[in-house]
């Protein structure tokens, strides 16, 4: 068998160094990034909301309810960006087998799922006064819903394995399969949407005053900083949990809490 012909474990030996060195070293770095991002998120959110609520004018057509856009659109964007980041770390993890990459993808998944859920919730609350129904089968809302399914699938699969190592790689593979399918799903939902409804009014597509736009952009960065901070926090927690395993294997590297 090719596999056992020379089952020398250079693939594993090569990883030996990576596996024990990088998580322990990354721990303080993650701590620093986390602190910076918390600060960034708070400041940007404060500024964004202030401009959004106290500087931006009332919208001509939708009155005040459009202000939900300041969290609806950033949440939808982050749901997509976090999924792509997750898929990226999964690809790195599968290619190099470094546990840290899998920790990153596991750290990102719950936040991404929350972002998708928030986008759907705010989309529904926005839809009610604007189109009369809580749920509109709008192409982007539907795609965010499917993205939420992909997140749930990833998290459920990662939890279905007792063996962490296997769970990491299995969930990484389904994240990649999902990521490859996202553009196709977006296209087919778009096709399906125009088939049935014709171009429906897109939330936020009406020409937005620049001040509204700046508020939304600031909020997007605030969301981004928030996601990074939460991810770093989860990575640090995972490092504590998993490195405890490494100590047990005799790596001898003390981990300061």
């Amino acid at each position, binding site marked *: *068998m090719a596999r*056992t012909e020379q*089952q*020398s*474990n250079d693939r594993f030996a090569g990883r030996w160094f990576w596996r024990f060195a990088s998580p322990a070293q990354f721990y303080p770095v993650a701590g620093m990034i986390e602190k910076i991002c918390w600060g960034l998120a708070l400041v940007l959110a404060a500024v964004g909301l202030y401009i959004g609520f106290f500087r931006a004018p009332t919208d001509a057509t939708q009155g005040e309810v459009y202000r939900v856009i300041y969290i609806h659109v950033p949440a939808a964007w982050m749901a997509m960006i976090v999924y792509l980041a997750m898929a990226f770390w999964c690809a790195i993890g599968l290619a190099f087998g470094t546990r840290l990459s899998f920790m990153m993808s596991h750290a990102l998944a719950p936040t991404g799922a929350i972002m998708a859920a928030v986008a759907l919730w705010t989309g529904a609350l926005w839809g009610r006064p604007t189109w009369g129904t809580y749920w509109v089968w709008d192409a982007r809302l539907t795609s965010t819903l499917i993205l939420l399914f992909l997140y749930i699938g990833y998290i459920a699969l990662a939890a279905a394995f007792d*063996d962490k190592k296997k769970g990491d790689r299995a969930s990484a593979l389904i994240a990649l399969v999902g990521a490859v399918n996202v553009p196709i799903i977006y296209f087919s939902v778009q096709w399906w949407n125009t088939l049935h409804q014709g171009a429906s009014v897109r939330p936020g597509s009406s020409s937005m005053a620049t001040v509204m736009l700046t508020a939304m952009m600031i909020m997007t960065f605030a969301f981004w900083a928030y996601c990074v901070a939460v991810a770093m926090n989860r990575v640090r927690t995972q490092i504590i949990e998993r490195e405890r395993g490494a100590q047990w*294997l005799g790596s001898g590297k003390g981990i300061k809490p």
Partner: protein
Amino acid sequence: MLELNKVVIERGGRALFAPLSFSAAGGVLVRVAGVNGAGKTTLLRALAGLTSVESGTIHWLRKVSPHKNSRTSIFIGHSNGMKDALTARETWAYNEGVDGNFVTDAEIEAALHKMGVASLIDRRVGTLSQGQKKRVALSRLFSSSAANAAWLLDEPFVALDAATQILLAQHVSAALARGALVVLTSHQAIDIVAERVLEIELTPWKRGDA
């Protein structure tokens, strides 16, 4: 020729046994001993290439065999790996076919005869007894593609009656005599005639066994 160097295998984040190193040439009977759950089956699966090792290396050094696509090792596990709905002949055709080898009926009958179950060739595996199933599974040891293969047997004597156990022991001795390497795990004390025997004891992993 098989060479292991500080092999550690993990299951669910825990190392199964202390780093293992040994080397065994053709004609050696390697007996793997260890308490239940010590990792005997997992070790055999790793030797067969079904499981990857956490650290350390497993080397199969093979002299170039005349038969183009012959196997390095043949693994007969606890579960016989046969579908109840298929007959012994079909199982054989599939097991060998999957490896790209075309197998003739004569070869199947000869192999089954070695384990004394030639008459069951067209019986559905589901209708056979545990012992008969085991013997059909073991008959694969005599396929032409396994001519120079090492035998990896996990508890082969289980479910076999006394006469068949002796028959299998003789086959193992014959294989050893013609230079095949046999790695065997068994709780039953079956004496097998073998010049060189290597006893491997899988001891639990202790902290500090780097």
